């Protein structure tokens, strides 16, 4: 049964119609039409769609702000100036209001960056990972993205890359990132959003790795107000002997849904996903992960750590498919949630679908209060109870930073976690 379109759905359809003429002839126009048509047929996902049962976007996205206009470069530079890169020496790639800003961006050695709308852009790795995907947020971005970047890493990136999405207005923003990394290439990426407090963002990333590549990717989700909406879909493919370490760090306010669609397709490939979430106050933090193992002898780990308090909500959906021929798959998923008080809510939904018979797969989920034995251990050494509880609460979340090898970056991320918890934990 088709539902009556909501105001938001009507607005998105009108936006597509209005932009259709601009899109015609531009790169990826045919893909836009196909994607938006499919999006419009199903509309915004709601609670009767299983994957969106706990994050009903049809009900939540009632009034969408207007689509963002192109940002003034000075304005963007002003916003950037207030927030230095998280890692010293990182090269920034700036996407403002969904559009690549070459004037404020830099590419480290062995990295090239092109606007995704540049007719000269190499689109050979664009759209491949999302083809056939029917996730509504992915389709909405594919139909409506304002612009974005194609990043190519050939060899080892000369410096860490910080992809900064800047919003200069409380607007609807849909930027797109496509990155490909050469065989045995290496890159370390941090992705974050700066600027307007009530931006409605629906980002899309495609990360394509070649054999033996190694990528560390950290995404910061830190909505600046109750009105912030941060939707993101990260699609990736991990081939033979490649390694991907991905971390989503969610703090802040508003509605967030971070989706990962990972396809592990090569022997000895390794994909590790971490999500550290502090959902405090009016925060709805949804981490949804779908991993498909499709090769003999590949590995993945999925660790979700959430702290919930003052009415915050954490949704953790993790789904691992092991295809029939993916023997010797080793996949472990664990979700641990910690209640900071009696008011938070957590939903853990782990799913395993295993069609191979020789695999090691496991999942577990816990939710509860802080463990009292370590509290006593610290107190018995003279650490006051409040400090002991704070340290242990921080530690609970900080554990999800286990794969962040850069010490300064690890410290900076831990500090964000401490700050986010400080509001609730004395």
């Amino acid at each position: 049964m088709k539902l009556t379109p909501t105001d938001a759905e009507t607005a998105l359809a009108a936006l597509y119609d209005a932009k259709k003429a601009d899109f015609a002839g531009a790169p990826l126009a045919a893909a836009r039409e196909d994607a938006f048509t499919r999006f419009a047929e199903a509309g915004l996902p709601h609670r009767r769609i299983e994957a969106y049962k706990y994050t009903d976007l049809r009900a939540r996205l009632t009034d969408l702000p207007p689509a963002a206009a192109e940002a003034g470069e000075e304005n963007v530079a002003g916003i950037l100036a207030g927030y230095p890169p998280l890692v010293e020496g990182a090269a920034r790639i700036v996407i403002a209001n969904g559009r690549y800003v070459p004037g404020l961006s830099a590419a480290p050695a062995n990295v090239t960056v092109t606007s995704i709308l540049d007719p000269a852009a190499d689109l050979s790795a664009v759209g491949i990972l999302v083809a056939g995907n029917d996730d509504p947020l992915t389709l909405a971005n594919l139909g409506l993205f304002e612009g974005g970047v194609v990043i190519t890493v050939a060899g080892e990136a000369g410096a860490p890359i910080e992809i900064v999405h800047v919003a200069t207005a409380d607007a609807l923003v849909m930027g797109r990132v496509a990155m490909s990394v050469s065989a045995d290439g290496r890159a370390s990426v941090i992705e974050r959003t700066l600027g307007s407090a009530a931006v409605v963002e629906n980002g899309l990333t495609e990360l394509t790795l070649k054999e033996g590549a190694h990528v560390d990717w950290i995404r910061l989700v830190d909505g600046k107000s109750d009105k912030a909406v941060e939707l993101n879909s990260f699609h990736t493919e991990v081939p033979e002997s490649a390694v991907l370490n991905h971390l989503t760090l969610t703090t802040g306010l508003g509605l967030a849904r971070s989706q990962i669609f990972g396809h592990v397709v090569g022997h000895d490939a390794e994909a590790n996903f971490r999500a550290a979430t502090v959902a405090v106050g009016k925060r709805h933090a949804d981490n949804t992960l779908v991993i498909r193992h499709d090769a003999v002898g590949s590995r993945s780990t999925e660790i979700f750590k959430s702290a919930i308090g003052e009415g915050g909500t954490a949704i953790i959906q993790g789904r691992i498919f092991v295809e029939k021929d993916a023997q010797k798959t080793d996949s472990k998923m664990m979700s641990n949630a910690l209640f900071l008080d009696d008011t938070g809510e957590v939903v853990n939904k782990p799913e395993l679908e295993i069609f191979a018979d020789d695999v090691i797969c496991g999942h577990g989920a816990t939710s509860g209060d802080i463990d009292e034995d370590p509290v006593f251990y610290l107190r018995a050494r003279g650490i006051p109870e409040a400090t002991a509880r704070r340290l242990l609460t921080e530690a609970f979340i900080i554990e999800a930073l286990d794969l962040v090898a850069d010490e300064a970056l690890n410290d900076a991320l831990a500090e964000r976690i401490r700050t986010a918890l400080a509001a609730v934990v004395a």
Partner: protein
Amino acid sequence: MLAIENLHAKVDDEEGREILKGLDLEIWPGEVHAIMGPNGAGKSTLGHIIAGKDGYEVTDGSVKFMDEDLLEMEPEERAAAGIFLAFQYPVEVPGVATMTFLKTAMNAQREARGEKALSTPEFMKAVKGAADKLGIKQDMLRRPINVGFSGGEKKRNEIMQMALLEPKLCVLDETDSGLDIDALRIVSEGVNALRGADRSFLVITHYQRLLDYITPDHVHVLAGGKIVRSGGPELAKELEASGYAEFMEPA
């Protein structure tokens, strides 16, 4: 230093099983007392009550430490006053780096006593000194507390903390359990190095073995919730030969 009189305590749950049934014990500065006894006698309970662990209710009697009512103090206050419990099962604390923990603990105690916080170089020097003596590698200090440590490493970590925190009364709860002979020697040497005129020890153990390395001044047999016999070091040897059977009869 420590004066326990007629201590009665029960488990703080619905069953409310009484574990200590009128225990008396007095420890003077510089003395090493060993508490031995069969399983279930209440040995670990005694250690826990001295350190202030939740889960027990003291129904009668008193525990005084340096003339203060210990039972009125929070665990962290007891630690700052000079009580140290070396745990039988040191807790693993993922996510809290050992160094952070040590510094927080040392400075919290110093602050509670009105002393100046240690500077980072002072702290590093102290830790390095204590760690080297116990054969604790720098790599272990960088790891989260006790995570991935072997049984012996955990116990050495306890003794290192004891050395750094310079307590007045050290309670060793079955420190020998799970240790091989080499680890036992290292741990014992660590303890012996801390013996002094102002520092007392309460060594809780099931086996006499540990007392070959840490020679006590007094040995007490705890059975059925009270001290049923006290003596010198020779009592430990006697127990090793005869076992605890004679104390197991209903009191």
